């Protein structure tokens, strides 16, 4: 039994050595393939490898990592000139791809989505994969980061100060560009409206439509009221979000209804008002459609937002079929 176990263990070791040797022999081919795949995805389009070669590129990178790990333990690897040359190539390519990636991503941020692809036919976000390939190949090789620290000849040749300083400058530039694109929209409003009032600023932030609507509700609905609001979801991301809406209407209570039904008992929940909300956004979700409420409401009066003074208050019930597909905003006072 012990002999059988020894035999199996020896066989396994032999097999592993053979795999290791194979990985070492064909490592440059695997490395080159992984690099070509990653560059192809960036220059052509993401998914080109899967379409024409029926291989997910992630498997190629996975094979590269496995090959790196196996081949570096091969005894021929340590003395190999090829592995040393490959490491230098990887380091140089890392610098190049890193610079390209950061520069093109920032160029995209400064202009618009797809700008770089439209001008240079390069997908900047996909450049992270060639960068990943060269970095992982370098990092997993025996001559990794600590070689720079320990070998003064390498320090003098590859000038780590240059790499570090350049990286620091690139990261700084990337951050500063990221900050500028982040605040661009806010800054342009602030510079154009230096003396803007709180109302104007809030209106700009939450959209004029929504802010005007909440001001309308505050004017027409007493503070001690309970209001039935649309269900939460597009096209009512703000008017249907009870927590969000409560900020503007507190101490009024708000309660979510359903699309085709009140979803709450008017008497039991002491509901006084129901919103009329077309929807703040064009997009919808959960199969919702514009216009709410989509059910009839027995009303004491209905107050609409309209430019026509004598048509803003209507007596009588709210009948959905009569106002269907009309872009209306207002509030219904329920008959008690």
């Amino acid at each position: 039994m012990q002999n059988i176990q020894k035999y199996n263990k020896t066989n396994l070791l032999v097999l592993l050595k053979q795999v290791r040797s194979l990985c070492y022999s064909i490592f440059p081919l695997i490395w080159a393939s992984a690099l070509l795949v990653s560059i192809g995805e960036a220059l052509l389009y993401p998914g080109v490898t899967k379409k024409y070669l029926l291989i997910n590129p992630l498997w190629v990178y996975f094979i590269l990592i496995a090959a790196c790990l196996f081949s570096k333990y091969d005894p021929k690897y340590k003395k190999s000139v090829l592995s040393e040359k490959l490491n230098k190539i990887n380091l140089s390519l890392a610098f190049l791809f890193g610079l390209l990636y950061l520069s093109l991503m920032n160029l995209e941020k400064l202009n618009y989505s797809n700008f770089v692809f439209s001008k240079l036919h390069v997908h900047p976000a996909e450049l992270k994969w060639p960068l990943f390939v060269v970095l992982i190949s370098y990092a997993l090789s025996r001559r990794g980061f600590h070689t720079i620290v320990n070998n003064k000849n390498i320090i003098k040749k590859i000038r780590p100060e240059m790499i570090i300083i350049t990286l620091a400058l690139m990261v700084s530039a990337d951050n500063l560009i990221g900050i500028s694109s982040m605040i661009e929209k806010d800054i342009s409003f602030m510079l154009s409206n230096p003396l803007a009032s709180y109302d104007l600023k809030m209106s700009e932030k939450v959209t004029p439509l929504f802010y005007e609507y909440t001001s309308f509700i505050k004017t027409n609905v007493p503070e001690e009221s309970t209001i039935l609001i649309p269900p939460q979801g597009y096209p009512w991301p703000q008017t249907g979000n009870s927590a969000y809406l409560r900020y503007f209407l507190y101490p009024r209570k708000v309660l979510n209804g359903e699309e085709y039904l009140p979803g709450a008992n008017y008497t039991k929940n002491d509901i006084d008002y129901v919103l009329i909300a077309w929807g703040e956004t064009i997009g919808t979700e959960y199969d919702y459609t514009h216009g709410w409420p989509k059910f009839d409401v027995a009303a004491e009066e209905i107050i609409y937002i309209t430019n026509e003074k004598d048509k803003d208050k209507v007596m009588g019930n709210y009948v959905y079929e009569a106002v269907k597909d009309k872009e209306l905003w207002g509030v219904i006072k329920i008959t008690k």
Partner: protein
Amino acid sequence: MRITKFTIAIIFISLMFLVKLYFFKLEPAYATSVVGTIDIISYSLLFMGGIIFFMFEKKRRIVVPNKKGKRDAKITIFLFAISLVVIIISSYVNLSKGAIEWDAIALYDARAKFLSQGMNFSEMVSLSKFDDKNQYYYLLYPPYTSIVHRFWHEHVSIAPISFYYSLNLILLGLGIFLLTKERLGVLFAALLMFLSIANTNIFYTSIIEYTNLPFTLYIIFGFFLILHFIESKEKWSLFFGTVLIGTSQFIRFLEPIWIAVVIAFFLTALVKRKNKTISLSIVVLFVFCALQYYSWQFFVGSIADNPQIFDFSHITIIEGILGIFTGGLFKVTLYLIRSWGLTLLVYLVSLINIGRRKKLADIFAGWVIIFSILFYWGSLYLISLEYDWWVEMGESLMRSSTYLLPISAYLLLKNVKIILGETRTGLGKRKIGFSEIIKRAFVRS
């Protein structure tokens, strides 16, 4: 330097103490409970203990290696200047914008509004009583941010609440510089300060009125104080660091970063486990942090009776194991890599050579990064098993993990100092300034 560190810590510990006292005043049921009593007593003990140790403990001298070359004032001044530009931009945006962001409207500032109108936290649960989707909402986050908002609105009329976050950014930058100056040197500490506050994600948290920046601040300062304790054995820094890490849960509760810090400290301290001070310090850190965790859980569950957002059971664990074989774990890993992007690379690169480091402080920092990444990975994976909206957490993930960047950058810069230290040795015994190194780096000899 010691006094500066102490002053920074005292400011934040005092602020948190005042916020907690106000919370106690609002919630007498919690304040008079056993948990509440232990909470405030433990806080006071660590607070007073830190002050006493600072006053009477013998100062330990830290030997800082690689302190070669003259300080390059011009580059340091330049770094301060561009950091100032970043702060001015943040301040201008916050002073001018007036309006606040979505979550601040829906939660943090809304709660401040309710507080000023006489409602307390345990009563806020009733506001979302009929909200099937978000019943847990009003106590999802601890009270710190809303209490600060409330007092700012009432007592600081000259600037909007947004400006408070610019102040946080200034304090973060200054604090990072002052807390790392001793170990990194003035130039690298200034570089770390700039890289931290100018980082896009950290800067973004300074122009939104959320919990992220104050949370990052408490975690970072607590981390560096514990680091100082590991190197100097000065107990006041352990006590204050413990308070800052533990009470960060009063700002954000969903991310258990304190667990990463406790485990990291435990593993680091194992190296010197026969030392009584170190062994006791693990107990102090763990007990206080666990108390803070349990205190808020107790309030939310027992006093306010608020439903939980996440409901994990033993079935989640079984699903988690099965998910490894069905590709669920791989999907989450890929999502995490995409969300963090290059920042993940920075975190991982900072861990290069961590196994060869001899300094306990560096090992501690490395463990904090490793366990933080593991926690985010594990938590996201568990959430992905139960909730289909987990993919929307990318932005939140970026914001809540910003504390990792200064820690990783600190480790990286320490590595760079080692490289440059050897380079200077290689170039000769003459002391060389940083400008000379830059010149030589780009000009072939």
